[in-house]
């Protein structure tokens, strides 16, 4: 089943290493990506 990621999620500005603040959608368009949510660092 396919779901749609909430639009506001992709327009939310974030800080992150190797990514400039801005739309995450730019990073994800056209290529499959594995999004990994980590509970903690370690």
């Amino acid at each position, binding site marked *: 089943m*396919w*779901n*749609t*990621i*909430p*639009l*506001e*999620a*992709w327009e*939310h500005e*974030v*800080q*992150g*290493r*190797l*990514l400039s603040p801005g739309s*995450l*959608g730019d*990073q*994800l*368009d*056209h*290529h*499959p*990506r*594995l*999004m*990994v*949510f*980590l*509970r*903690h*660092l*370690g």
Partner: protein
Amino acid sequence: MSVLRRERGLGSLPGVLLFHSASVEEGELFFGKHWPEVPAISDPELFFFDAMGVRRGRIRELFGLRSLVVGAKALSRGVLPGRPRGDVFRMPGLFLVEGRDILWRQRFETLGDAPDLPGLRSFMKAHLEEHRSNAD
């Protein structure tokens, strides 16, 4: 994370985007050492965790037998839990996305669940075949 890093290194996984609830500085320090080639998003307000439905675990999910066994195994290997940061009761999350579409997700039942890489590979294979047949 080490399993994913190894599999990504073998080329069997698509590009990885990590989300964590620590600060940018803590993320820089950690991922700079452990997985420098992968982008990681600092999300201390858990915006993306919430947006993607990565919720807080229930007691059984957090402290069930499987979680305890995995924790004990990690301790026996000398892996100590780090200093708690962010919401330590959040479950992990694993999604395959393309553009704005979630193609696949793993539903973690306990903290002890390993990433379902066989399930992911199986889905990716079927997805690619579907794309090929649609293109014909």
